């Protein structure tokens, strides 16, 4: 039966080629959109590892540019001034705030390959402000004061990638050489069960916190504050907070943003393009559906005699409709096969980049499935028309 259908399609290859081309293009669009949807919404199921409720971020700007900064910034005094306010539950210093678009990425060599991870400095209070949870070891504390290494906390992903099944607590990071300056060697003191600084729609990544000791020299580069306010604190408290900070450092400027607002903006940045892409593709598929239906309709009208003959020699209405559906599925197979051939090249040529192959495979499979369902449903109405063909009239139709 199937061979027979393919033969019919092949015999009319000139007419079917353009339909196959259209299906191939649609397949490419579907693979793109579905892969992005699988990627973004597949990430949501992983735990986030922190909470942004009632957390405000304060950007400190001493207007010294990216290379500026140094030990002389009064960050400890600022943290203490913020924590002293009655509306503030806790305050801490951090280098890289969740949901901010910038990222600090560092690399190390792992098994001869470059291994990238995101990192940030954090003072002891960050665990409380962001509600971090540890699965192994401990968070930074005063017992790290004066340690001859940089205390470091990884997330589970980084711990797994860097140390495998071994217990990372107490180990130095693999690329930190023994001859390095002791205050540059990073030693793991704990592991977070999860930490995804970029938010729920981004892929989970390896992450490392290293301790900022507010009583010692500050790290290079910008440092900001994160402040957890008590529930019910109005947004207008911001002015009082900035005023208190200005009391400590009159020459600095402070920009306060609530992490909840940053979360909304950051999520919109992912969801809006996805929504636009999905809506456009939906319209595109609707257009293709109308086109295919039109083409099949015409082909049923033109093949009235052939269909009539089949009915006359005993084909059932269902059999005739099924043939129309199977034929378009056979044409779709040509389009999908070429599309899958192209898609298969991407992982082989290493063009996927950071996209996990499993996600891409899921996108391709979903697109294939969707396209067959789609093509078959376009054939339903023309197929039904074919069942209405009366053999006696069709055979007389000249």
């Amino acid at each position, binding site marked *: 039966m199937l061979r027979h259908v393919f033969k019919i399609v092949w015999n009319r290859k000139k007419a079917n080629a353009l339909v196959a081309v259209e299906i191939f293009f649609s397949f490419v669009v579907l693979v793109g959109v579905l892969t992005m949807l699988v990627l973004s919404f597949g990430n949501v199921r992983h735990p986030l590892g922190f909470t942004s409720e009632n957390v405000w971020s304060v950007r400190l700007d001493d207007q010294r540019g990216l290379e500026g900064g140094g030990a002389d910034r009064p960050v400890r005094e600022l943290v203490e001034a913020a924590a002293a306010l009655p509306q503030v539950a806790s305050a801490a210093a951090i280098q890289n705030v969740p949901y901010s678009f910038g990222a600090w990425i560092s690399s190390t060599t792992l098994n001869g390959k470059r291994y990238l991870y995101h990192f940030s400095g954090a003072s002891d209070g960050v665990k409380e402000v962001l509600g971090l949870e540890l699965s192994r070891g401990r968070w930074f504390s005063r017992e790290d004061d004066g340690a001859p290494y940089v205390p470091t906390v990884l997330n589970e992903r980084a711990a797994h990638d860097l140390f495998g099944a071994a217990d990372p607590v107490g180990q130095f990071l693999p690329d930190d050489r023994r001859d390095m300056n002791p205050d540059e060697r990073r030693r793991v003191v704990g592991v977070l069960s999860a930490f995804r600084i970029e938010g729920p729609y981004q892929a989970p990544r390896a992450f490392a916190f290293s301790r900022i000791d507010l009583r010692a020299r500050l790290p290079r580069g910008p440092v900001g504050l994160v402040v957890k306010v008590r529930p019910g604190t109005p947004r207008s408290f911001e002015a009082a907070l900035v005023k208190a900070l200005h009391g400590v450092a009159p020459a*600095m400027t402070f920009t306060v943003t609530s992490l909840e607002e940053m979360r909304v903006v950051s999520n919109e940045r992912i969801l809006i393009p996805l929504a636009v892409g999905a809506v456009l593709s939906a319209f595109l598929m609707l257009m293709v559906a109308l086109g295919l239906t039109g083409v099949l309709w015409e082909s049923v009208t033109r093949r009235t005699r052939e269909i009539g003959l089949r009915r006359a020699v005993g084909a059932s209405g269902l059999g005739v409709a099924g043939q129309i559906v199977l034929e378009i599925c056979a044409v779709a197979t040509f389009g999908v096969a070429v599309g899958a051939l192209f898609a298969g090249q991407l992982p082989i040529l290493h063009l996927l980049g950071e996209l996990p192959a499993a996600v891409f495979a899921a996108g391709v499979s979903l697109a294939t499935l969707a396209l067959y369902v789609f093509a078959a449903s376009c054939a339903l109405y023309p197929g039904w028309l074919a069942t209405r063909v009366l053999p006696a009239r069709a055979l007389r139709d000249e």
Partner: protein
Amino acid sequence: MLPATIRTAFKVFLRRKFFTAASLFGIAFALTVLLVLTALADHVFGPRAPEVFHARSLGVFSATMKGESRTMIAGPGFRLLHDTLPGLPGVERASIFTTPDKAVTYLGDRRIELWTKRTDGAFWDVMRFRFLEGGPYSESDDRDGRLVAVVNESTRRKLFGTGPALGKTFELEDRTFRVVGVVPDIPFLRFVPFSDVWVPTGTMKTDSYRRDLVGSFMGVIVAKDRAGLPAIQAEFRRRVKAETLPDPLQWSSLDVEAETIFHGMLAQILGGSGDTAKVAAILGLVVFLFVAIPVVNLVNLSVSRILERSPEIGVRKAFGATSRTLVVQFVTENVILTLAGGALALAASAGILALANHVGVVPHAQFGINLRVFLAGILLTLGFGVVSGAWPAWRMSRLHPVVALKGGL
């Protein structure tokens, strides 16, 4: 001849309403997407005030400093621009200014976020703003760090309500600025001039920004004429090479280019992450698909529509119609259909753009269909109609009359 063709076309459209509707929907959808894209591109790249010297300008927007283990991609720093831009041969004027930064001011209980840009006095010579009130600040205001500001129209409304603002003061980052000028709102996507408030660079609280090679500044130069641009770019490159890098152990190379404003903006929009070629390739593929699918779809529909009329073709050929006549007829039918779709698309895209302006997707954006976009739309429509009509028409016109009369393909 032509009126008969058109009359036939309408008869054909009305006879098969489903085909006409399906074709119209496809054409209107494809052209709407293309028109909205054209309007966006025009909004970002088209010449308009205050960027009146677009054609003979160069900009420095991005600097990449590389070391063994790290890469820093940011804007150029003040020192880099101050060392390289002044006195470039063939340059008429040059300006150094910051990327806009969000600043917050409090008005009673209200929190107002204002984009703030710091510029030199020459900025107002490089960008020709239309002033609603007052005028720009000068080079000496910048040198002495006077607390003066130019604000845009919506900031004037937010801070001072209705009525003039000249000479009035407002708080910004803990200091009091005096308004010396008011300009119309600048769209967010015109990122070179865009801001809500413009103040002199000299009002920064410290002057350590003056030591940075990489930072958050931009530079724009206006050449005497367009032909001089390559020579200026070469000289700029030479001057960048002569810069000494900070901390040579950490950093080994500095990569900065003076680009045309168009290239600079393209790079910013495409991510500015150095992956411009990849992003452009993906965008190109997307646009290609959005054109190719509707074209193929329309060709398929046209072929079907014409196949159905093969007896008519047979009769006309048998009575001596030439292939040419038939091709003209089919292409005309297709172009009429496309023009109708184009009209629908114009209405739809005007609606979408108005909605985008109304919702405020992009601050101060005034997307719209101007004459440039309209003409581009007409060209797109005609191209679409001819391309999608020509092949089916040619194929049908070659049918042998006997085969056509029997309804074959």
